[in-house]
């Protein structure tokens, strides 16, 4: 299987072996693709079936397309509202993370001052700690500043926990930018603030997009933090919380179709955005891990 055949002439590659191997491994590729698509396709189809159909035959096709499941999930289970809640919070936390992350990273990358190394490592060291460790005190910190159960509280906490990685990533990125442009701008009389906002920030766009995509998905997918910081079952919860309580109530009511509809509503927009910006999203997420 893995013998090195040194004697085989260059113009006669071992065709038969690769032919079989190709069919074999192509089969595996197809199998994994099916294993990825099948659950999602099943979710979509089940969201259009009646509860009776779902229980009677999990593999069956819907007799009629029951979009009223979607309407029920959107209104009765408030998935629509939770979706908007998440959108608002993530818009806030992402903007704040990017602004504060970029400014801090810029200072770390471009300015010399005493204690810079210490502050930098203190800051970036936050990446090493599991969130679980902070959970209990965090709850009381957020409560003591009066932000428990509020969106600003959640936005600040998302931002705080995203800053170490964002600063780490962007500091490295700002360091790769050429200094000559900045020096030229300074000679032309450009001030420090103007230099950052008009010259350096636009130049850092690729890095900002990568880390922005990474942060968007991690904020959007948060479950543990909202679960602790927006307790109870109020109307201002996040989408992930809404879905998990929909799953719980579905368990009692037996309304499978509504759960599938809720999941589909949550998945479709993300999937559409992903397919549209596939390359940037894959590059952004893998860049985040490679550093």
């Amino acid at each position, binding site marked *: 299987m893995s013998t090195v055949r040194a004697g085989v002439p260059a113009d006669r590659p071992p065709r038969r072996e690769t032919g079989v191997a190709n069919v074999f491994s192509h089969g595996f590729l197809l199998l994994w693709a099916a294993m990825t698509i099948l659950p999602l396709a099943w979710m979509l189809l089940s969201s259009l079936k009646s509860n009776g159909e779902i229980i009677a035959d999990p593999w069956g096709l819907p007799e009629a397309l029951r979009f009223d499941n979607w309407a029920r999930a959107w209104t009765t289970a408030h998935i629509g509202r939770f979706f908007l809640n998440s959108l608002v919070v993530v818009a806030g936390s992402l903007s704040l993370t990017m602004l*504060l992350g970029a400014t801090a990273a810029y200072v770390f990358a471009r300015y010399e001052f005493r204690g810079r190394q210490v502050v930098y490592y203190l800051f970036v060291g936050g990446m090493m700690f599991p969130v679980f460790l902070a959970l209990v005190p965090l709850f009381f910190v957020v409560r003591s500043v009066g932000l428990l159960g509020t969106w600003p509280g959640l936005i600040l906490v998302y931002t705080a926990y995203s800053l170490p990685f964002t600063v780490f990533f962007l500091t490295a990125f700002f360091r790769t930018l050429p200094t000559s442009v900045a020096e030229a701008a300074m000679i032309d009389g450009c001030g420090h603030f103007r230099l950052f906002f008009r010259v350096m920030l636009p130049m850092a766009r690729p890095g900002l997009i990568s880390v922005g995509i990474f942060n968007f998905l991690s904020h959007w997918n948060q479950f543990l933090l909202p679960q602790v910081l927006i307790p109870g079952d109020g109307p201002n919860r996040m989408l992930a919380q809404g879905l998990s309580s929909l799953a719980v109530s579905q368990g009692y009511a037996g309304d499978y179709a509504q759960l599938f509809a809720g999941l589909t509503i949550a998945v479709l927009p993300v999937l559409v955005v*992903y397919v549209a910006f596939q390359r940037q999203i894959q590059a952004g997420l893998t860049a985040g891990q490679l550093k």
Partner: protein
Amino acid sequence: MRHGRLPLILSFLLPPLAIYGIFVLSPYLQAFQISTTDWLGYSAQADQVGLANFRTLLHDGYVWNALRNNAILLAVVPVVTIALGLFFASMLTMGGRKGRAGVTGVRGTALYRLVYFFPQVLSVVIIALLWKEIYSPTSGLLNGALRAIGLAEPPAWLGDPRFAFWCVLAVMVWSNVGFYVVLFGAAMQAIPRDIYEAVLLDGASRATMLRKITIPLLWDTIQVAWIYLAIAALDGFILVQLMTNGGPNFSSDVIGLRMYDTSFGSENKFGYASAIGVAMFFLTLSVAVLALRTARRDRIEYS
């Protein structure tokens, strides 16, 4: 020229530092302190108990049970995920037929890459809830298929203590493989084609190529993947909480869920929960350091 330097440093650095200090640094420091108290619930009453919580921890059967499951995740998930990721990535970047173009991917590579990455953009909550339905004994996709091929009484999966944990483990692998296919694929594309072509001319098989060329050249990326997957294996909280809630009979419990339950779930033992958190911190840290060290040693052997 120095005008405006200090205002910029201060205004750019202080707000992020303040937020970081209040919401990240101070909770972490407090956690260590709380872990030495017997703080129960929401009352202000908390007495110093020294290391008593950690002594209790050492004899807590539930904690050890959860840790054992995390250890299994740690042993299985990274290996399986990385192996599958490498296999699929090498198929996609150089599995194509050898023609005049030299080393290419199989047909439809772009489409595969698009599909494989799907789970990565879904939230773990959605993955957990969807798979819980797939495993459902009566209305699930899996048992539907098993009944169709003639199995009269398929297992209850998440309801069966023999299978529940492994079902969650499978979902963990499922949700991670696609990401590593893309990650390894990108790294493989950076390897110069002519290396492969030279090896192919020498008559090496695909498997030899993967083992002797690709993996050694990708070792840095694999090492990073290893660390991230190890950290993920020590967590697993969301999947377990939503799919099985640790059950049946604690068979699929993990340490994160233990801590969550102790603090915000069935009990409010904040002191004890913080002690579990501190233990998790040292565990994560030592696993990361260990992964780095073993990986580094292997690398020397290869090169």
